[in-house]
């Protein structure tokens, strides 16, 4: 029997050159559904995060077990994407983080973070873009490799948020335009809850 976990990591689409880390000027057309149902929210600061996640979960609803699991996944994915945009993306010229996780912050005057989502009752598409473009392709692959290589517990391991996205999303994409923009997104399918997701 397939369990939620045994479905394996998402199909990953990396838009950009994985060797040089240079992004290409290819958009995410086709990866994120366009249309009137797409909702877009612009953040003003970290205080917007809980409200936006609540909005997303309200749209999905948790009236049965499958939707409840989709809500749990969607909440985590939105949380990770927004945390990355708020705290991991902003960096100074030496590459040091400008803000620490857990500290409330407002967006800088020229900074933009946008959340987009679309839910048709069976599939949730979710995407967050920041205006930094500081993530590199090498980092993405390194984070996924480090977290895949060993299940040994290590509190200091980096890139766990991206690893969760890769493992839990049904499709996962990253689009980097260095110094300009990072877009991280993917989709989640509503599927019948497994009978016992903990059975190997």
């Amino acid at each position, binding site marked *: 029997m397939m369990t939620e976990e045994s479905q394996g990591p998402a199909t990953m689409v990396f838009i950009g050159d994985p060797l040089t880390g240079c992004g290409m000027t290819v958009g995410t057309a086709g990866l994120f559904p366009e249309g009137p149902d797409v909702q877009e929210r612009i953040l003003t600061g970290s205080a917007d995060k809980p409200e936006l996640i609540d909005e997303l979960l309200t749209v999905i609803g948790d009236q049965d077990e499958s939707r409840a699991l989709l809500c749990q*996944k969607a*909440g985590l994915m939105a949380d990770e994407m927004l*945390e990355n945009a708020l705290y991991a993306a902003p960096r100074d010229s030496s590459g040091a983080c400008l803000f620490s996780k857990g500290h409330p912050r407002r967006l800088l005057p020229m900074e933009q973070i946008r959340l987009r989502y679309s839910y048709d009752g069976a599939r949730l598409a979710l995407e967050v873009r920041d205006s930094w473009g500081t993530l590199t392709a090498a980092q993405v692959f390194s984070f996924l490799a480090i977290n895949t290589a*060993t299940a*040994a517990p290590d509190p200091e391991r980096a890139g766990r948020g991206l690893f969760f996205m890769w493992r839990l999303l049904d499709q996962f994409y990253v689009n980097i335009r260095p110094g300009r923009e990072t877009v991280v997104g993917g989709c989640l399918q509503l599927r019948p809850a497994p009978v016992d997701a903990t059975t190997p």
Partner: protein
Amino acid sequence: MEQTFKVAYTQEPQRTSFLFHGNIDAHADRHLEDVVRQASSPTVQLDFSNVGRINSMGIALLLRTIKSLKSEKQAEVQISGLNQMNSMLFKMTGIFLMARELGA
């Protein structure tokens, strides 16, 4: 609704039980440090029945807490009350290699 993280604990001769409430993320840091300070029994039970979301920062803090409970307090750590999502995350990150899930 955003759930502020809180911890309630009960002390028995052989076991200290901590009941977590809310989402576990960077804001849980200080509370989880208190868990290590307050644990004083050979067995420590962490109850996640009232926990919502645990993000990657929350997982890192839990790994650090369980490591400290085992190394500083020589405690056996038991886990209970996980929802489906959090159970998957614990498997993916090796938490079950450090702490036993009750009833599993």
